[in-house]
């Protein structure tokens, strides 16, 4: 593996991604915190922390929690969570060609996909920087779990997460990631079409489906 040996060491390659991930860390912490606060009454002290450690997909955790809290059973809760993760299918298909190595290794690296890291790893030319993806996720993962733990253990002292405006974090966070992507009018048009498609479907489709269907707007790229 001479090509491998010629590359800089892993710690050096991960550094730009780590730097980006550290900036994302406080958001992961705060959203994890609001998940912990909301999950505590429904799931107890331990389960929310375990869930953040092993599922590590914010929207699907909130979605599954909402079903459980409304009295739905495990099956609808898992279905809601799966639909909210469905966007990771097209996102993973986009990422896959940029991942070298065996299938098992690519599958493991695919676990690092969360919205922010995936967006930051995208080079804007249809390829992804694998080291940036891994580096950006590394700080977010422990902070997501720690945030959840603080939320479950200290939640009764924090009050309602909505009163603190924590539900406004997600859209602001995604907007900050979106703006640098809007490089030209075509991109802006497709992004608006995706948003419009998602909004149109939100009142009628189960959560998660609108964003999945919105991905179809990117097929506009098949045109010159």
């Amino acid at each position: 593996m001479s090509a491998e040996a010629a590359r800089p060491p892993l710690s050096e390659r991960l550094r730009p991604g780590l730097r980006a991930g550290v900036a994302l860390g406080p958001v992961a912490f705060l959203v994890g915190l609001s998940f912990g606060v909301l999950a505590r009454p429904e799931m107890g002290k331990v389960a929310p922390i375990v869930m953040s450690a092993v599922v590590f997909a914010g929207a699907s955790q909130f979605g599954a929690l909402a079903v459980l809290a409304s009295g739905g059973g495990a099956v609808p809760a898992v279905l809601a969570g799966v639909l909210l993760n469905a966007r990771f299918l097209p996102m993973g298909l986009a990422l896959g060609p940029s991942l070298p190595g065996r299938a098992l290794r690519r599958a493991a690296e695919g676990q690092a996909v969360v919205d922010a890291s995936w967006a930051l790893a995208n080079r804007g030319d249809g390829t992804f920087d694998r080291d940036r993806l891994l580096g950006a996720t590394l700080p977010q993962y422990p902070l997501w779990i720690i945030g959840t733990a603080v939320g479950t253990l200290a939640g009764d002292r924090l009050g309602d997460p909505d009163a603190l405006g924590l539900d406004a974090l997600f859209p602001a966070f995604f907007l900050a990631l979106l703006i640098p992507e809007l490089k030209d009018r075509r991109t802006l048009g497709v992004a608006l079409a995706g948003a419009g498609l998602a909004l149109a479907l939100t009142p009628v489709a189960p959560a998660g489906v609108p964003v999945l269907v919105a991905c179809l707007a990117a097929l506009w790229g098949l045109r010159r």
Partner: protein
Amino acid sequence: MSAVWITIAALTVATILIKSAGPVAVGGRQLSPPALRVITLLAPTVLAALVAVETFGSGKHGLVVDARFLGLLAAGAAIALRMPLAVVVLAAAGAAAGARALGAA
């Protein structure tokens, strides 16, 4: 096992499979220019859809305009002023919390 733990176990397996699917199906290959253009457009499309749904989506009522929209406007202003990400999200949370405290939204 309670519904909570069944949910956690099943959602863990499902999430791993979903995140693995793309990388396993297509790995390490050169793509055609049209495929690259589609992938290039995917990030802004997904992010714009997430902004829209997370701002206006409501579990029970379909679409609503509430304090989250004020938060989004505050975030937009912070982005326009080239503030760092932490300031952007705190501006959003602060605007939404303020509006709710005043009973405006």
